[in-house]
């Protein structure tokens, strides 16, 4: 069973269009689906679930949609979800740029993170206003600052050091074993870049709100049938 599964939640809008619903309803169905799938993953023994909720590139969408997406993030702090996080002892982390996110939302995010930070066995990471390139850049800047203060030497900079500065350093397992992208698009779209070096990728043709237990099991079965070599012969 993979320890860390990552999801690119693609297809909410197309699902809504096909079902004759609004985009906002599409995103809402998507948000609910994420909680369901995360719960399933944890039941199956997965430790960390991460999700690409909102990309830095999504800021280019129209204002109404952005408002919808922001209200969705608030959805995660509704009562039933908070109960779920505490009942199942799920630690929640939100990673990303955070500078453009409204102050009130940031406060709520911080509250959930604080309230759940004690839980060790299950971790839900939401990537909001996240970009793989931004993550690597931010890690590099952090290292430059440290070398300024004489805390590290420039020749000490290596892969492990950079990895420790990435936003996924909140997790025990920063690199996903399996990444699932729905809606048939076969690209990473600037989600985790560094962290996906050896990740098994699975592309599902269904739209995210339709990604149910069967589809998840199919992805996990595919993962289990793969031979991971990490460049060597097994």
């Amino acid at each position, binding site marked *: 069973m993979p320890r860390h599964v990552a999801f690119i939640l693609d297809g909410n809008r197309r699902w809504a269009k096909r079902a004759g619903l609004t985009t906002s309803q599409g995103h809402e169905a998507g948000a609910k689906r994420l909680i369901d799938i995360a719960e399933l993953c944890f039941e199956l023994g997965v430790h960390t679930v991460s999700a690409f909720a909102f990309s830095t*590139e999504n800021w*280019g*969408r129209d204002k109404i949609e952005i408002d919808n997406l922001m209200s969705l993030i608030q959805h995660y702090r509704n009562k039933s979800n908070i109960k779920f996080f505490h009942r199942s002892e799920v630690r929640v982390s939100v990673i990303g740029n955070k500078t453009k996110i409204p102050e009130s939302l940031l406060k709520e995010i911080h509250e959930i993170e604080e309230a759940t930070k004690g839980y060790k066995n299950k971790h839900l990471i939401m990537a909001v206003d996240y970009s*793989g*390139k931004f993550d*690597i*850049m931010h890690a*590099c*800047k952090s*290292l*430059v*600052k440290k*070398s*300024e*203060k*004489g805390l590290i030497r*420039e*020749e000490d*900079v*290596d*892969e492990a050091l*950079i990895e420790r500065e990435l936003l996924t350093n909140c997790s025990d397992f920063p690199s996903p074993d399996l990444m699932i992208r729905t809606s048939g*698009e*076969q*690209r*990473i*779209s*600037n989600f985790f*870049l*560094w962290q*996906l*070096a*050896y*990740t*098994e*990728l*699975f*592309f599902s043709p269904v739209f995210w709100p339709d990604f149910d237990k069967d589809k998840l099991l199919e992805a996990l079965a595919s993962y289990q049938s*793969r031979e991971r070599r*990490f*460049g*060597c*012969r097994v």
Partner: protein
Amino acid sequence: MAELPGQIRRMSGGISQLIEQIYGFSRRCLFRVISMGPIPSHLAFIMDGNRRYAKKHGLEDGSGHKAGFSALMSMLQYCYELGIKYVTIYAFSIDNFRRQPEEVQSLMDLMLEKIKSLLEKESIVHQYGIRVYFIGNLALLNDQVRAAAEKVMKATAKNSRVVLLICIAYNSTNEIVQAVKKSCINTSDNMEAYGNDKHEDRDSDIEGTDMENQEKRIQLVDIEENMQMSVAPNPDILIRSSGETRLSNFLLWQTGNTQLCSPASLWPEIGLRHLLWAVLNFQRNNSYLEKRKKQL
């Protein structure tokens, strides 16, 4: 009567040449039609499956890699004929050094032989006017391979029609680390020059000027400029053969928006149909992507 076998051989040789010419002509016609739509400017390949191919056909290990090399030459020919300007291949990963020493050595020997052959007059380099880059931590290679690689880069430096980037002793995370180190050095050189004008004595560890300036200088563009792969645009398509769907630490920074393809065929079995499929998919997605780009 004794002439007959010779005549037959000459005729069959002539026929197969004719078939080849017809095939080549049809292929070029097909490419003309396809190039009415957008053509990717950069294609990347992870050439996976040579060893499994050898095993499947009961050959000795090294033959798989040799068959892989032939497949590569064909693919390069098709790409350049189609009008793709940049092709990148994952020849040898830093992780591959951890394989059995005999296999590593035989791969190095094969690569040396093939790198040297690139300089020959009949090679594909001369046929298509290819500029060749070797991308990776070349210091990890043995002296002979490194010297041969440097010779080829120098000899093809003036070519500009098409480009071949060979990733050897390469690893994306390593490329990023090297780029970061280079960016740091560049920054401290800049700061020293700045500092020399401003201060008489400085602590040699700390640059002595405000950190905000320092931070502003390490922008996205700095790291990108210092990446070895900055000589080419980001790949439009990445094809990994043998059905494995993972990046294996290849071009992580550059493939954020690249279309990923993973045909099930082993690398020596890769052919024109896989390239066509990838390009047609690219054309299908291209209009959707252009629309999304406009939204940014």
